[in-house]
């Protein structure tokens, strides 16, 4: 069980609304997006698969290179692949823009 945190201080655009997608099934994850209270974005991941901090960092570095929302992201993860993670993040972004 690991708790992983990241901070992206440059992401400051106000979020239109919050979002939640996904189910914590085997090989899957859920993610919620909420407006962050302070400047920048915060990511908090609870994962049952240990040892992939660098992979998560790479995924989020890539995500925040295109996304600039001031968001608190929380993830409960049961082994989603990086591809699945990006897909869920994109679904969440879509939901925030509805």
């Amino acid at each position, binding site marked *: 069980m690991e708790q992983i945190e990241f901070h992206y201080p440059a992401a400051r655009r106000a979020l239109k609304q919050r979002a939640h997608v996904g*189910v*914590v*099934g085997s090989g899957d994850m*859920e993610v919620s997006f909420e407006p962050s209270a302070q400047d920048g974005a915060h990511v908090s991941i609870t994962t049952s698969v240990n040892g992939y901090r660098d992979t998560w960092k790479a995924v989020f570095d890539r995500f925040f290179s295109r996304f600039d929302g001031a968001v608190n992201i*929380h993830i409960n993860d049961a082994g989603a692949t990086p591809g699945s993670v990006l897909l869920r993040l994109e679904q969440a972004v879509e939901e925030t823009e509805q």
Partner: protein
Amino acid sequence: MTTTGFSPLFVQRKSFIELNGRRRAYALFDENTATELVGPFDRAESPWLPMQGVAPQSDDGCIVIKGKISGKPAVAISLEGAFQGGSIGEVSGAKMVAALDLATIDSKAGKPTAAILLLETGGVRLQEANLGLAAIAEVIASILELRQHAPVITVIAGTVGCFGGMALAAGVSSYVVMMREARLGLNGPEVIEQESGKDEFDASDRALIWAIHGGEQRVGMGLADELVEDSVDAIGSAVQRFVTAGKPAQHRSEQVELYRQRIADLDSSRQIDPLALREQWRSLDSKGGTR
């Protein structure tokens, strides 16, 4: 042949079984009347799962939606089958009991509030064992309170079905709606094979499984009320009808003498042919056996 204008009903039909627990619950309500309570942003999670290296879910696998169905107040409690097999833990059980009890309070105060239970569950979450089991006893108790004032409608769609202690929740409900794909039973095929051997139940025999536990069989036997196709509209309209119908004249789980006699009449000397039993009980029902 072109495909223009060729649109068979099954293509147009929106599948219910493909929806997750949250979408299934929302689909039942009148437009713009539904609100989720203690939802994912509230993070009411299991304290026990992380202690065992299992990732929790922010709603603990139980979704509660309050709103109106056919203009009448209703609450839907939906179990997410993809999270821990829809199993009942401390928090998911507490959410279910709380929602049922609040519906009872409203009902007693003059605002009858039906409960729709979307049961996609294997029963107790073993990682929370005794708190899960205690919660199920409380769910049963709370259904029995509410059903005196407003209908409690269990919907079983699949693919998990409704097994374990939660099958008793289905058993004490006012009405049970099942899809053909759905299954309902106290013990699933795997646990029977495990406890009593492959001769007793071959868990790989899918035809046997649906012949005994499947929606068509359960409805045919009079142990569930309506068989519905895999369509959001069909499930929604069945639920609306039962919400509007209100309380049944008598509850299935109160019909003790009737079922005691049927069990006494069973030939237990060999395995029972499910189709033959279905025919037998169906003909007894039509002679005025049950409602």
